[in-house]
């Protein structure tokens, strides 16, 4: 089951939309699907995207994952959320022209698996 679609409006000329499944999120593997679009609404293809998931508590080792482009402008990654709680996902993207771009979104209230 996929969750609702969230919109992040960046200050630059790119927009990031993300989906997290399952919903509500639980510990264990979650699938994060990202869609990057430019100011004209055109999907951005060919970016190299790395995800970094952090917990809200200091001292937790972040989780890293690469995102694969599954269709033009759509990227998908499996991330292992090892602990229940609030997570923050940082998206590190290298655009086809070499420019770096970063965005952050939250996955709040990840519940323990089995609940």
């Amino acid at each position, binding site marked *: 089951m996929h969750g609702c679609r969230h919109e992040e409006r960046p200050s630059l000329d790119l927009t990031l939309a993300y989906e997290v499944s399952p919903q509500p999120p639980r510990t264990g593997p979650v699938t994060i699907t990202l869609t990057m679009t430019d100011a004209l609404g055109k999907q951005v293809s060919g970016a190299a995207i790395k995800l970094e998931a952090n917990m*809200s508590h200091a*001292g937790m080792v972040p989780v890293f994952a690469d995102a694969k482009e599954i269709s033009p402008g759509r990227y998908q990654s499996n991330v292992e959320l090892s602990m*229940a709680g*609030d997570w923050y996902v940082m998206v590190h993207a290298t655009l086809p022209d070499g420019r770096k771009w970063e965005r952050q979104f939250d996955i*709040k209230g990840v519940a323990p698996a089995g609940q």
Partner: protein
Amino acid sequence: MLQSDLNPKTPPAVDVLRVPFIGAFLKHQHARTLLQIPLFVISAAMILHGLFGPQLAPRNLATTLTWVQFRGALVFVLLFAGNFFCLACPFMLLRNLARKFVRPVRNWPRRLRNKWLSIGLFVSMLFVYEWFDLWASPWWTAWLIVTYFAGAVLVDSIFKHATFCKFICPVGQFNFVASTASPLEVAVRDSQVCTHCTTKDCIRGVREPAAPLVVIQRGCELALFQPRKVGNVDCTFCLDCVQACPHDNIGILGRLPAAELMNDPMRSGIGYFSKRKDLAALMLVFTFGALLNAFGMVTPVYALENWLANLFGVKSEFPILAFIFGLFLVFEPLLLIGVAAWVTRIWGGSKRPLGSLALRYAYSLVPIGFGIWLAHFGFHFLTGFYTFIPVTQATFADLGWAILGEPRWSLPGLAPNVVQVIEFGFITLGLVGSVLVSYGIAMSEKLERPLRVFIPCATLSLIVAAAAFWLMSQPMQMRGVVLGSG
């Protein structure tokens, strides 16, 4: 019982001040300042990074160093050595600097010369930690450190002696209680030397011979007179007494951890444990606060908070937290201690009043309380051991000075399942300590059937330990509270 009863005339097996290099360093006149300066610099960096750096807790020095490295290192140093963090306290560096310009003239009010205010502040700190999610907020963590510095300087600029340390500082009170289970204490080497001492410089300070009102070396600012000092309560390991003693008769001596909790001698600067309701309350808050602080990090707390929110029909976290704090820091300890003391009266035949028994029992809980703090802080410390490295690397890189290289965010600490075994070990160690202290207390009652005093007292520790084992086996969940979310 005097210090001389606890310290036989045979030389102590361990005296840190006689260990080559370490002893010489600690006895150096400026040793404390040299230890404080690096911690002061780190504190300043934490404040600046907390206020102006990235506001994601795992990427900020304020939150990482405070809630992972500092707390963990603090409890491990207390476990394996003693109250050396108070020795190196950076707040006192600034306070001592301020005292070069402002000489305090007032005495701390007599009615406040107890632990009640500091207990209130300690509980407030635990409360604010949960309410503001301090563990997730670099900004608030930085302000907490600023408040400490400001409090220490302000209070000790107005009031004489070590008022802030003895009567106010919540971290200091934590250290005083935990250090009762430490293997080292600042103590007299040979009590016979003290009986012939006429100057009592360890408490009065060294005076200018030509001007006796001028102190050239402080004595103990916490009113601990070495010949009658027993144990570590209220001792900041500042070593002023070591500097002041003209006979080089004070050391940092090895001892049996937690043994000081078994007996109830008259203690300099403290009095009798059995007559200090405030100290007993501090011990209880220390122990049950350990459970409560760990409870805030596991999944069931959110279910409880939501259940209470629905029960009371409130959406604000404040009243819910206040209820939980009242339940776990007041009602639960009083109920458990009260029942244990009552059972001792009717079954054990103790002639002590109920309140007096309850006071004695409170001290027996310190080792298990310390074990729970060790388990909790040890978890964050060991699982996040290296996290300060990439955060420091990133801080330098953000300043445009990437001399430490690219941040290595994936540096692992110990695996949580490995650390859980260590957590259980700490709780077990604390339980064994509490049971032994309970036995010591029972023996000191000098009753016909001391086992009937020991069993209720030890059962108390078992109940606390069982709660701790349950807590540490719960799934962790670190998030802000959204009431009504189910």
